[in-house]
């Protein structure tokens, strides 16, 4: 069995350092398996968040050799036996302990997003939506809230003073999903401008690059949202769009 050295950050808000753990990896193991093996055999108190171990819950976000990733979807055979693999917490959010960070910023932003405002149903009381009209919003519904996009966003990472008025890529696609929802009737223009701060995003696509669900955050979410916000200053364009439904938006 190949053996690796895992260099894992251990510490808390007051600081910390790296500890080396020599550990064997069985065939097909992922970084999260190796972290679990360290917990079971060498460091029972090593703090790490995880749930599904299947890339579906977005809990085990960390930086592996400096790259933001889900530990459960990062196979150890990416590395050569004998390699040192460095695992650190995602760096944008305050550390709680070891690999666990305080991501409450994201939950605060989530609460601020104005929810769906439903149009009335069809005459028979049901809602009809065509598959081609839900496809675009469904892409954003794939989001597993791993917050890796938030982690790499320059605005959140480097500009503490702007965080109050900036929602970040996760919530841009949340908003885009609502805006492209065929049954939605709410106007979020002012929110997106003033509280979500979409103007601060300068489209470097760092968020898209790290998305484990391969959501086209920038191209399909942020850019259409920016365009839409520009359009929406024209109330006639806004009304027409809401009236016609969501078809025919730019790709």
């Amino acid at each position, binding site marked *: 069995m190949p053996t690796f050295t895992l260099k894992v950050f251990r510490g*808390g808000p007051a600081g910390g350092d790296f500890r080396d753990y020599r550990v064997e990896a*069985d*065939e*097909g*193991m*992922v970084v999260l*398996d190796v972290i679990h093996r360290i*917990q*079971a*055999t060498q460091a*029972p*108190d*090593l*703090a*790490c*968040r*995880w*749930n*599904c*171990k*299947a*890339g*579906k*819950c*977005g*809990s085990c976000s960390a930086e592996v050799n400096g790259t933001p990733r889900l530990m459960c*979807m990062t*196979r150890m055979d990416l590395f050569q036996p004998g390699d040192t693999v460095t695992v650190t917490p995602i760096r944008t959010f305050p550390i*709680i*302990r*070891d690999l*666990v960070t*305080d*991501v409450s910023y994201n*939950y605060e932003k*989530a*609460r601020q*997003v104005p*929810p*769906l405002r*439903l149009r009335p149903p069809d005459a028979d009381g*049901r*809602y*009809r*939506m*065509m*598959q081609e009209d*839900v496809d675009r*919003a*469904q892409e954003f*519904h*794939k*989001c*597993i*809230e791993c917050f890796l996009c938030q982690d790499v966003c320059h605005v959140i990472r480097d500009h503490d003073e702007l965080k109050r008025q900036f929602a970040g890529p996760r919530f841009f696609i*949340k908003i885009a999903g*609502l805006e492209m*929802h065929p049954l939605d009737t709410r106007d979020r223009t002012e929110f997106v401008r003033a509280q979500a701060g979409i103007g601060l995003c300068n489209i470097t696509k760092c968020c898209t690059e790290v998305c484990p669900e391969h959501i086209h955050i920038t191209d399909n979410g942020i850019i259409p949202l920016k365009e839409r916000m520009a359009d929406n200053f024209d109330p006639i364009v806004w009304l027409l769009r809401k009236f016609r439904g969501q078809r025919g938006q730019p790709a």
Partner: protein
Amino acid sequence: MATAYETYEHDVLVIGAGGAGLRAAIEAAAQGVSVGLVCKSLLGKAHTVMAEGGIAAALGNVWPEDNWQVHFRDTMRGGKMLNNWRMAQLHAQEAPERVLELERWGALFDRTKEGLISQRDFGGHRYARLAHLGDRTGLEMIRTLQYHGIHQGIDVHMECNVQRLLKDGDRVTGAVGYWRKNGEMVVFKAKAVVLATGGIGKAWKVTSNSWEYTGDGHSLALWAGADLIDMEFVQFHPTHMVWPPSVAGLLVTEGVRGDGGTLRNNKGERFMFNYIPEFFKGETADNEAEADRWYHDKKNNRRTPDLLPRDEVARAIRSEVKAGRGSPHGGVFLDICSRRPADYIRKRLPSMYHQFKELAGVDITKEPMEVGPAQHYVMGGVRVDADTTQGTVAGLFAAGEVAGGMHGSNRLGGNSLSDLLVFGRRAGLYAALYAKNFSGQLVVDGAQVEAIVRESLEPLERSGGENPYAIQAELQETMQNLVGIIRKEAELKDALTRIAALKERAKRVRVDGGRVYNSGWHTALDLRSLLTVAECSALAALERKESRGGHTREDHPFTDDAWGKLNVVLRLRDGRVQVSREPLPEMPAELKALFQERK
């Protein structure tokens, strides 16, 4: 010396924030009471995200012939008639409205050509019935409930583990837990408590369940004096990844078979045709041509045996592997690549495509998958009143996997998500009504709190002792080997002896490293509930001397009609788990008639 702790007070405290807990909290809040929602993980990470195939509800969008009676009948037959009939009836009747409600809250299900919610085929369901979004339905459901819920005035307490319930006399009045982030203890005073904690899968080695599934709610209820039923019925879902070893147990949705996939052995045979039980002969195709026609013409053809209920398919796979007809890594083959176009597979099963590609290097549009059974679900749980979800202790309610009765001896795929919604809503509603009618003072006994706090901190304060991970691993090995798909008396007794020894060792467990987000400490505390539910499951399995659904006894291989009228009930009295057999509620004549209509 008294320990400092925070105290919160709510009318209704919901423990667990998966589908059932979120739906309960939303409903309780809608009744105008104050609601606290406690979850072990971050909000939106609960095990519901793992559900793949869909939500079973007789919407009739694809097959207008479908209705609640057909769904009810399928559910009861899938559970081998051991279900609480009233729960199965309410579930079938209310599931469609719960799905439409999710749509009104923003869920975007896949559509039919007419623009309605599309429905897919699943095991044991007569008609295509599962509302879905690709193979990520659980994610869609939890995200919808989460984003609806955060605007309903619910207090969400994240990353908080509840250790015990508090009682005032005969009624439940709250709970004690700890915050994972700092290890501080916390007290919740509540007029009513809803358990929505999910299952017990972490007692087994090969399971699709996450670390959270340590039977917390089952144990909290038992310790508070409530009855558990049906704990012998454990679902080993037939299809999970078997290779590589580190992903063994990762779920492969039944939707693969619902969308046309078929099981094959290493000779290429569709072996399920050899495993059609008498009970399902009338409704199951006995040849490949009919089975394949059934996908498109349900009126004139019978269902493919690939979609027999899960217990039947799991046993069949186990038999094939045992007979030497398995795949290289000890499973069987699940083939959709030769039966459906690549585009269709990627659209209908995107996360299956992704997970095999990323974790096993297998392209499921080109090669068959290797799959085998793993622990997936527990049918047993807290004994509840069907209409109100109230347990046998006042002030205690339960919904979702932690509640027993709904699924009888075996759950049909897709019936879990609908169960969460139907009974989550009912739990929230009736817990709120109970809280509104609560009389007298809401009293929390400081001595009870102190005892729980002291017990919780012990693993950090002992000198010398056992490693919690080692005990957990031994328990998982024990349950895997001795309380698995096929059981027998000697092995069950052996399991109970081993569990008793592990319980003793767990009393000496010790961890270093302080109280802040200490994984070792959390594992140590989870052992208490994990060992409790393991014991309950083994005790009930020993008691039921027949084979039915998710309980197969090698030494009692047949289904026994006398046992078909009995639940195995467990309750804690004087520190010991007592086992008794109690009669099943009797189904009224008009529902019984549904089972005579056709074969």
